[in-house]
C-alpha cells in the first residue's frame, strides 16, 4: 500500500494549497509588482513585509509559482542573483498585472465583508 500513503500525503499538500491558493497567488503577484524576484526572495519578502507573521510554505510556493506561470500571469527566466548565484527569476506579465488588480479588489471586498460580519452589533 506504499503508493496509497504517498497519494494521501500528496492530497494533504494539495488541500493546503486549496486553502491558501487565492491569498498566496495575490501575495506572490503583489510581491512581483516591485520587480523580478526568485522563489526564495519572494518567500523572504512576504515574511518581512508581513512582520514575520506570514510564513510561506515552500511546498505551496513552488507549485503556486508554476501554476501562475502556466496561466501566463508571470514568466520565469534563469539569471544570476545578487549573490552571484544562478536562480530562476519570476516576473509579472501584462496579464498578471490585470490579474493582480482583480485579485486585490476581490480581496478588499472579501475583507470588508468579513469585517462587516465580525463587527459587533450595535
Amino acid at each position, binding site marked *: 500500500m506504499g503508493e496509497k500513503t504517498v497519494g494521501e500525503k500528496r492530497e494533504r499538500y494539495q488541500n493546503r494549497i486549496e486553502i491558501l491558493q487565492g491569498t498566496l497567488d495575490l501575495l506572490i503577484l503583489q510581491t512581483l509588482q516591485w520587480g523580478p524576484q*526568485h*522563489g*526564495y526572495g519572494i518567500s*523572504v519578502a512576504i515574511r518581512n513585509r508581513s512582520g514575520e507573521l506570514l510564513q510561506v510554505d515552500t*511546498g505551496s510556493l513552488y507549485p503556486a509559482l*508554476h501554476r501562475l506561470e502556466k496561466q501566463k500571469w508571470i514568466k520565469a527566466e534563469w539569471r544570476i*542573483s545578487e549573490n552571484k548565484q544562478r536562480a*530562476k527569476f519570476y516576473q509579472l506579465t501584462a496579464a498578471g498585472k490585470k490579474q493582480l488588480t482583480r485579485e486585490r479588489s476581490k480581496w478588499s471586498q472579501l475583507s470588508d465583508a468579513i469585517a462587516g460580519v465580525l463587527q459587533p452589533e450595535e
Partner: protein
Amino acid sequence: MSFWRRRRREADLEEEVRSHLEMAARESVERGETAKKAEQAARREFGNVELVKETARDARGWRWMEDIVEDARYGLRRMRKSPGFTAIAVLTLALGIGANTAIFSLVNGILLVSLPYPNPERLVSVTGTYPKGAFVAMREQMRTMDVGAYAEGHEFNLTGLEEPVRLTGTLVSAQLFSILGARPELGRTFYPGEDVPGQDNLVILSHALWAEKFGGNPSILGQSIELEGKSRQVVGVMPAEFRFPSPKTQVWLPLHNDPRNTILYWADDFMPVLGRLRPGSTMEQARTELRMFQSHVGALFPWPMPAAWNADASVVPLQNGMVADVRTRLLLLLGAVALVLMIACSNVANLTLSRAATREKEIGIRSALGAGRMRITRQLLTESVLQAILGGSLGLLFAKEGLALLKLVLPPDTPRLADVQMDWRVLAFTGGLAILTGLIFGFAPALHSSRAALTGALKSGSRGTTGRVSQRLRGSLAIAQVAFAMMLVIAAGLLIRSFWTLSHVDPGFRSEHVLSARVAPNQSFCGGAARCLTFYRNLLDQVRTSPAVAGTALVNTLPLGGRVAKRSLDVENYAPAAGQDLSPLFWLHVVTPDYFRVMGVPLLSGRTFVDADVSGEPVAIVTAATARRFWPNQNAVGKHIHLLDDKSWRTIVGVIADVRAYDLQRNIPSWMSGTAYVPYNSSATLEDRRMPSEMTIVIRSTSDEAQTTAMLREAVASLSHEVPVSEVKTMGAVVSDSVSTPRSTTILFAAFAGLALTLGIIGIYGVLSFLVSNRTQEIGIRMALGAQRRDVLRSVMGEGAKLSLAGIGLGMAGALALMRVLSGELYGVAATDPLTFCSVAILVAIVAMTACYVPARRAMKVDPMVALRYE
C-alpha cells in the same frame, strides 16, 4: 508533452529547488550558524523536496501522464487476475484488428503507396488505347507531357538454349523507361529512336529471366539471343523490383514503329499510353491538350474512324489508371472487415459490461474514496485501450499470416500485389485502430459503470436501475452485432449465389477430358504459311494416332484463355447505324475442322467444317448471337462475310451455339460485334493480315493429364526442337481460372461473414446467459408461485427472439440500403435479391435461436429452492 521536454523541466525544477536551499543556507550561515546545521534547517524548512516537486509537477499539468502509467499498471494487474476474460476479449479484438490490418495492407500497397518511380505524382495515364501511328503522332505533338506506350502480353520463343522456352514480353516505346524514371540493374534502357525498324533488334531482360536462364552472368550484355528466330542484342537487365506493367513480363522489346506497314501501324495493337507531365504543366493542361489532339487524330488514320473512338479519353494519375479495376473490390473488402471489427467491438463491450456488473462494488468503493467520475471513466477506458493494444499486437501477427493467405486467394494478376507488404503505414494504421477500438468498445461500459458508481453501488445487491440500464445497453449492442453480421452474411449470400450462377453458366463447350496447350513455332518459321501448316498437320496426325486420344484440333484463341483475335470484315446486307463502323470488328476463331467435335460445341444449323473446306471454297461458321444480330429472323446459313483484303467472300455453312469465349459472362468484349470461325489455312488472316502462327492444341483424351502432356511434348519434340510447349492446362482449369476474381471475392466475403456470424451469435448468447444468471432469483420465485418450466423457457426465448428479430430487421434494412455497392460484383442476381435476403434472415434466425436455447434451457432447469437461497 514530449519525453525530452519533460526531462528538461524536471532538471529545471530540481535546480530551482537547489538554488532555494542554497540561498536559505547562506542566509543562516550569515546569521552565524554552522554550514551543516544551516543546510539541515533549510531543508527542514523547505519540507519534503520530492513532494514539492511532485505537487509542482501537478501544477505543471503532467499529472495525467503519470495517471495513465498508473492506470495501465493497475489494468495489467487486473487482466492478469482474470486471464479467461482477457484471453477472450483480446482474441476477439485480434481477429477483428488482424483482418482489418491484412486488408488495409492490400489497400495500402495497391492504392496508397506511390508508384516506385521518381516523382510519381507527375506520372499520368491516358485513358483509351492507341495504335502505333496514333501514338507516334501524340508523341510528336504533345507539349504538356512526354508520352510512352506499351503493349503487354506478347510472346516470344527463346531458342538456342537446351530447350526452347516461351517468354512473355512487353513491347515498349523507346522512351518508356526514361519516362518512368526506371534505371536498369545492368547495362542501359532503350535510347530514343530505337523503336523504328532497323534500330530495334534489341532486348532488355527481367532480373528473374537473367538469373534463371543466363546464370546471372553480366557478360550477357552485348550478346545476342534468339527470339522468334531473330537475333536480338541484350542491352540491359532490369532490377527485380521493376515489374512494369506486371510481374509476368520477362523481356522488353522496342515497339516496331513502321509507317510503311499500314495495317500494323494503324490497326494492330491498340496500346495503353502513359506520360510524364513536363515541368510547369498541369494535369488539367494535359487534359485540354489531349482533347485537342483527340479532335484531329482520327483524320490521320488511313480509313474513317468512328467518332466515338476514344471520345472520352482523359488524363488521370498513373496510379489510379493502373489500379482502377481493383479499387472498388478492395474498398468493398475494407468495408466488410470494418463491419467485422464493429461486431468484435460490441462483443467485447458486452463482455466488459457484464464484468462491470461484478466490479460495481470495487468502483463504488473507489468513488466513495473520492475518485471523480472522470477519473473512473478514464481508468476503465485505459483498461479497454490496453486490451485493444494487446489485441492489436496479436492482430498484427494474424495479419501477417492473413496477408500471405490473401496473396494466395487473390488472382495473381491483381496489379501491384507482389509489392504489397506491411510497412510503417500499416503499423500506424493498426496502432491507431487498436487505440480507437479500445476507446469505442470501452466508452459505453466505462461511462455506464462510472454512472453506476454514483447511483450507490454500495447498497448491497442493488440490481435496480443500473441492472436495467445495463441490460438495455447490452441488448442494443447484441442487436447491433446481429444487424452487422446479417449485412455481411447477406453480402456473402449474394456473392455465393452470383458465383454459383456463374460457375453453372453453360460455357457452350464441354470441358471434361480436354487438355489444351500452346504450341507455337517461331514467327519466322511460319513466314512461309505452307511450312507452318505442314508442321501443325503433322502434329495433329501424330497426336491423333496416339492411344486414348478421341480427337484433337487447333484453335488460335482458346475460349476463356485470355486472348482475343480481332478481324474487321464486311457482312452481306449489313446497314450499320449512324456512327457505327462500316466493317464491324469480329472475333475470328481460326480452327481445324475437328474443333467443334473435340470441344463439344453444339451445331444449331447447317454443318461444321470438313477436311475439304481447308482447300476448297472459302467458308465460315458464326455463333447464334452473331446470326441473330446480323440476320434477325433469317437463316444465316448461305449468307456471306468478307474478311477485309481477303480475295473472296466466304459462305456461312453453319451456325453453332454461343461460346463464352471472353469470360463466363460474355461471349465477346463489348467493343466487338460478332464471332466467326474459319478453317485454318493461308487465307485465314487476322487484323495484321497474317495467318496466325501461334496455335493452341486441344486434345480430347481418356488418359490422364500427365500422360497426355508427355505424349504431346514428345510429339512436338519429334517434329522440331525449336517449338516450345507452354500453358498446358485442362479445359476445366481454364474455366476455373477465368473466374478467379469473383471466386476470391466470394471466398473472402464468406470468410468474413462466417467470422461475423460467429461473433454475433456469441454476442446474443452472452446477453441471454447474463440475463438468465441475473434473473435466477426472479425465475425461482416465479416457479415457486406456479410458473411452468415451459413459461420460463418461452419468456427467455422470447427475450432472445426480440433481440434477434430486431437485429435481423435492422440488418436487412441496412443491407437494402448498402448492397447497391456490390452490384458491380454480381452476376445473374440482383443486389436486392429477395430469395437471398429471406434465406439469410431465416438462417440467422435459426442460428440465433439455437444460441438462445442453451441459456433458456438453463433457466428452465432452475431449481426454485436453490434459486431462492441464491445470494
